[in-house]
């Protein structure tokens, strides 16, 4: 659930209509007409990473900026396929256990080091080293990874414990960006502040709490195969600003102080849509949607009938619609539409049906009623605790509305939901303590349908680090997902992943609500060529150029 993200096919990048209008001065007035070359692009985002090296920790803001200075081995397309990037080609052994990557030649890191097989091996080693304190990249690899070794100057062999067909899409994320071994050897403190990659921009300075300054890498030769152009970026300089406040961020865009913003606030969507100078790009992450996870160690929730009753009673589409006013769609499946192998059959498996909910609860033995009208069994009230982060940055007002809607809907069928606002530290403690909560809200972004295995498997149940929020697993589901990871045949994968979606729907371990979305808002009268890549929804600025006369 860290904010890992990915989105769906966002293809149509900015339909950039160049509009005159607006009083703000053309930012590119002093730039030579007729070329895309030059200028400074200012991009504003909400959250500041704690470390610019995405191998450390593993939070979404790290990938968004890392995409600008790190290249990965492969790049992911919206249809889930991958294309060459730093790896020119690759071969996968019959049994799916050995991957040989052949690297592009002549690529250098910003510090002059050569990109070779040893450098890539050093990156895998850094990710696997506990001292790197990776909480995302490591999790993707650790269940599968055996070793990385260099076979020759430009060939790297990665060996796995068991087949893992999503490996290539996983490696496309900026979490797996390739860094200079010499830079990594400086240690975490320095590498966090000034990581060194092979990407289109170089990190020059990180002014904490304010911005990261990046400069164009004039020697850039390693753009991914799906880039809109090869060679160095168009803009000379990139300023990556942190504007946490929603009003300020959107205001900066409208006034032209920045060219594009990440995370257009939902409340500003209507204004942005009405403004001809602004275009938006939406990206549905490949993910387990934002969902209410039901803790099956609770005696009531261990009964599938009760879990299903909660879904029937919730009117989940109505909850989402009332909170997000149609800006976010409803999703009732275990994975989002942006996830490869999504099966639409399970979009809304348990429609709103109060009668059905009541019947199921009666069958489960919750037939008594107490003085407040709540259901009881053996004198115990059916009461469920739902702790949530009280910080509005973590639980935005619309999410709180969703939780309150849920509480009100369950009240109608006699189920008490106790909403418990808690501080971040308490919530962190609750994560690992199944006795401290009954329901929790969260999501998990990941570029593959294998994310179902991360959230709902015996293996993650046994790691006991709070990933398996429902504290539940099913042997058939585990086997289905392992089989899916072991095959590279797309038809077979579709079949297995559909089956997994079916099994998860049957279990009703969670109540999915809406897919995670990323929204870019772009001043299309000032800048052109920004697109979103699909592995984590990272904005790509290598192809961006400032508009001016003659373009």
């Amino acid at each position: 659930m860290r904010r890992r993200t990915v989105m769906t096919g966002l293809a149509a990048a900015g339909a950039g209509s160049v509009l005159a209008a607006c009083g703000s001065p053309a930012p590119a007035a002093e730039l030579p007409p007729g070329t895309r070359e030059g200028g400074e692009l200012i991009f504003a985002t909400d959250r500041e990473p704690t470390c610019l090296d995405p191998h450390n920790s593993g939070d979404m803001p790290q990938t968004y900026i890392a995409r600008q200075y790190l290249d990965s081995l492969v790049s992911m397309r919206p249809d889930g396929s991958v294309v060459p990037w730093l790896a020119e080609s690759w071969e996968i052994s019959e049994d799916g256990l050995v991957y040989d990557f052949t690297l592009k030649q002549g690529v250098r890191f910003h510090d002059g080091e050569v990109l070779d097989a040893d450098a890539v091996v050093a990156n895998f080693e850094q990710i696997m080293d506990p001292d790197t304190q990776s909480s995302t990249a490591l999790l993707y690899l650790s269940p599968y990874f055996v070793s990385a070794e260099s076979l020759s100057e430009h060939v790297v062999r990665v060996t796995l414990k068991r087949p893992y067909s999503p490996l290539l899409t996983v490696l496309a994320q900026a979490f797996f960006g390739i860094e200079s071994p010499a830079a990594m050897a400086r240690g975490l403190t320095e590498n966090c502040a000034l990581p060194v990659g092979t990407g289109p921009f170089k990190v020059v300075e990180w002014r904490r709490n304010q911005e990261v300054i990046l400069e164009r890498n004039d020697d850039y030769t390693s753009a991914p195969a799906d880039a809109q152009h090869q060679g160095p970026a168009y803009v000379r300089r990139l300023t990556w600003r942190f504007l946490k406040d929603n009003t300020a961020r959107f205001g900066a865009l409208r006034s032209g102080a920045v060219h594009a913003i990440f995370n257009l606030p939902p409340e500003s969507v209507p204004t942005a849509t009405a403004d001809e100078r602004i275009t938006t790009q939406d990206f549905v992450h490949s993910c387990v949607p934002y969902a209410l996870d039901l803790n099956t160690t609770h005696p009531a929730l261990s009964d599938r009938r009760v879990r299903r009753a909660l879904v029937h009673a919730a009117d989940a589409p109505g909850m989402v619609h009332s909170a997000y006013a149609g800006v976010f769609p409803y999703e009732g499946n275990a994975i989002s539409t942006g996830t490869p192998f999504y099966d639409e059959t399970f979009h809304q498996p348990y429609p709103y049906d109060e009668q059905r909910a009541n019947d199921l609860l009666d069958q489960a033995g919750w037939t008594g009623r107490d003085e407040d009208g709540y259901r009881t069994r053996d004198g115990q009230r059916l009461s469920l605790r739902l702790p949530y982060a009280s910080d509005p940055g973590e639980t935005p007002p619309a999410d709180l509305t969703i939780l309150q809607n849920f509480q009100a809907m369950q009240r109608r069928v006699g189920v008490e939901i106790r909403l418990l606002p808690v501080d971040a530290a308490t919530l962190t403690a609750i994560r690992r303590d199944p006795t401290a909560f009954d329901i929790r809200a969260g999501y998990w972004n990941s570029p593959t349908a294998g994310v179902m295995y991360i959230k709902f498997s015996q293996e993650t149940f046994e790691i006991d680090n709070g990933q398996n929020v429902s504290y539940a697993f099913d042997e058939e589901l585990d086997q289905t997902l392992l089989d899916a990871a072991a095959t590279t045949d797309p038809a077979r994968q579709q079949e297995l992943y559909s089956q997994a979606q079916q099994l998860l729907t049957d279990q009703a371990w969670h109540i999915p609500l809406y897919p995670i979305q990323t929204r870019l808002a772009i001043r299309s009268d000032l800048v052109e060529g920004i697109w979103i890549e699909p592995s984590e929804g990272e904005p790509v600025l290598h192809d961006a150029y400032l508009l001016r006369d003659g373009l």
Partner: protein
Amino acid sequence: MTTTPALAARRALTTLASAALLLWAVATIVFFLQHLVPGDPAQTILGGASANPPEETLEAVRAQYGFDQPLLVQYGNFLAGLVRGDLGESYTMKQPVTAIVGEQILPTLQLTAASLLIAWALAIGLTLLTAGRRGRLARLGASLEVVLAALPHFWLGVVLLVVVAVVLQWLPVVDDGPAGLILPALTLGIPLGGFLAQVTRDEFETALQKPFVLSALSRGASPAAVRWRQVLRHAALPGIALSGWGLGSLISGAVVVEVIFSRQGIGQILVAAVTAQDLPLVIGVTFVVAAVYVLANILSDLATVLVDPRLRHTIGHA
């Protein structure tokens, strides 16, 4: 004016010692309070409630920061660091705390200084114009002060941002130069100005009844000159004493304002550090705020002496 060097040195020493004691107490309280907060700081360092670090990673973090040691040992190490002037390294930002605070304190001080200036300009302006006047003007001034003093920072900040910067575009939404200081400083300064004006007005109206006003007027001084030269001097005293407290409140207000206007500053840092249980950083910032309080109170004492000549004797002989 007759302060002897020995006396002055003793006063200075006492002040320093009590400041040191205060800072030690602040550090100790913050240290233990932070450890009362539930949750695992290692988990927090690795991304908080939304991350899923594996156990080995957590253990690497615990070992690196010494969370696996007994609390008293951690406290001892922490005090030893303080004595050396080493506030430690921020867990989340992976930089020395002194470097972070050093970098972020200047924008906050600029902001609070500008806000204090605005607050005083507003308070003096309102008082001179409306205090002690008859009829509507005085009532208008008094009501205006109440309204201004009641404005919450987060509301005023957003309104100024939207109206002045986004809609009218008179000022930049974000700007690192002096233009970017205007709106944040107004946001902080206006409510404090209203508050100071209330205090100043009361005192001003009391002073207007004093005999020296009548005698000054009878000597032929113009009413405006009397208000400005003599009455205001009396009226400003409680306000000045309150400014020391006001400076502290401005720093807490800066927490909100720095976020709204995306300014650098220790307010933003403090919020992030508390949420992330970044103990060294919380203590570092708390320290600086405590030090600013101490300094501000010394300064407001000095300012009082400056404005009220009578105090120069009594303090000198104290």
